[in-house]
């Protein structure tokens, strides 16, 4: 078993989860408040990448961001961002693909909070940002946790998109999910089991820690 893919995987999963939180919290907050007419369409669109097979999504992203394409050229020439065959591409694709796992639970959490919590923070002169950070987020912790766990786990396991847009380059885009897939394909079941077990154990430990911390804090103060 090589360490490269494992390290890359957890780097990708942490980074993706982090970026997803940064994007999803404001997005979900906005969705939970807005009276915008087209909201259901937006909500549906967010889930849409899920209905296509990952490899196919990957393929469409590949076509969209290929240097042959004006978008790809533009990105590369204007901000030096190259999304195909690069780690940033993996992150980008994972973020798009896991977006619904983060946005939807958080949005549901916000929707369930009583309006008076926000209102009373506002009349105390607290900004929307402070209110979000100090009042709303701590009170939707179980929803936030759901979003984090689903996105994190999903990013670790996903390989279709990543394989397509990343190109399986050792130490750059060859994540563990691709490695274990390759071992299965090559009938190296022993190696595959080793990777799987390791992925499984590390992910298990991380998520369990998250749950335990959350559970303890909850038990101490909530009930």
């Amino acid at each position, binding site marked *: 078993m090589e360490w490269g893919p494992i390290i890359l995987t957890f780097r990708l999963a942490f980074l993706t989860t982090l970026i997803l939180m940064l994007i999803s919290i404001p997005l979900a907050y906005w969705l939970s408040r807005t009276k915008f007419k087209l909201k259901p369409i937006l909500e549906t669109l967010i889930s849409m990448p899920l209905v296509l097979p990952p490899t196919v999504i990957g393929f469409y992203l590949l076509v969209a961001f290929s240097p042959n394409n004006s978008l790809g050229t533009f990105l590369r020439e204007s901000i030096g961002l190259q999304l195909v065959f690069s780690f940033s591409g993996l992150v980008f694709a994972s973020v798009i693909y896991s977006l619904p796992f983060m946005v939807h639970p958080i949005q549901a959490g916000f929707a369930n909070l*009583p309006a*008076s*919590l926000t*209102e*009373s*923070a*506002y*009349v*105390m*002169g*607290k*900004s929307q940002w402070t209110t979000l950070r*100090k*009042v709303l987020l*701590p*009170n939707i*912790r179980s929803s936030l946790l759901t979003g984090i766990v689903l996105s994190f786990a999903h990013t670790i396991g996903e390989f279709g998109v990543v394989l397509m847009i990343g190109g399986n380059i050792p130490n750059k885009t060859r994540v563990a999910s691709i490695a274990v897939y390759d071992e299965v394909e090559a009938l190296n079941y022993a190696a595959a089991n080793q990777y799987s077990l390791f992925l499984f154990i590390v992910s298990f430990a991380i998520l369990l820690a998250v749950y335990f911390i959350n559970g303890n804090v909850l038990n101490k*103060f*909530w*009930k």
Partner: protein
Amino acid sequence: MISFDLYKKLKSPDGHISLEIKGNLEQGKLMSIYGPSGAGKTSVLRMLAGLLKADKGYIKVNGEIWFDTENEINLSPQNRRIGFVFQDYALFPNMTVLQNLEFALEKNQNNKIVNEMVEVIELGELIHKHPKMLSGGQQQRVALARALIRKPSLLLLDEPLSALDHEMRIKMQDYILKVHNNFNLHTILVSHQFSEVIKMSDQLIMINEGKVSKQGNASSIFIPKELASDLQLDLRIVELMSIEGVKYAVVLLENQLYKIKIDPESQNKYVKGGLIRIAVKDISIKDNQI
């Protein structure tokens, strides 16, 4: 000085009520809003706080315009400097009592006031508890303390004392009056208790189905025109008893019980739960024993 004139159509699945209310309140004065349940009292407070947008009208506080539909001014709740005690308390479940209070502090505000409030509102042993662990009345007291932390220029109280027992209620009334006077606040209080309204307010607005039915100071609204030197008292009979042949009625008046002798002849006119109406004629104010 705060003055407002507000109009709002409250939507509801069946029909509407239109809320119309207008008033002035000088600095340091306390206004009560009194009216039956569903009259629109909470909605008025929410409009003043900027949590509900009136359809038409204005709010002016100390010369500053908070809200004006004509000039399209609408300050956010954050910019209105208010204290608000919500009917459902709205304590933050994730924070302890102390954290709830501290959260209300403004930037750079000295946090001595937190300790003061803890002391005055007798929250001592509660400060490290979370709101879910508190009884209803305890939550209400925390909400009140929290609204006062900021020394707001307008204090809005939506039935701030309804879950409190009599003793605590009197204490809190006095405390609200004290803060109100010390900080020279504008205070608007929604309350259902007549004696509370009379005791606390300089001004009173009675509303009914969204419309002001009476407005002015308490005496001008409630005082009968004619001189009433006769006090009419309704004594509720709590118990009838006879001790050594003598009949007594235990009666309730003003949170006090009295045991009074009754005339054996008219004895069967009295039943438990009934009322005895007595008139105290020509009270000699010299009886006064302050």
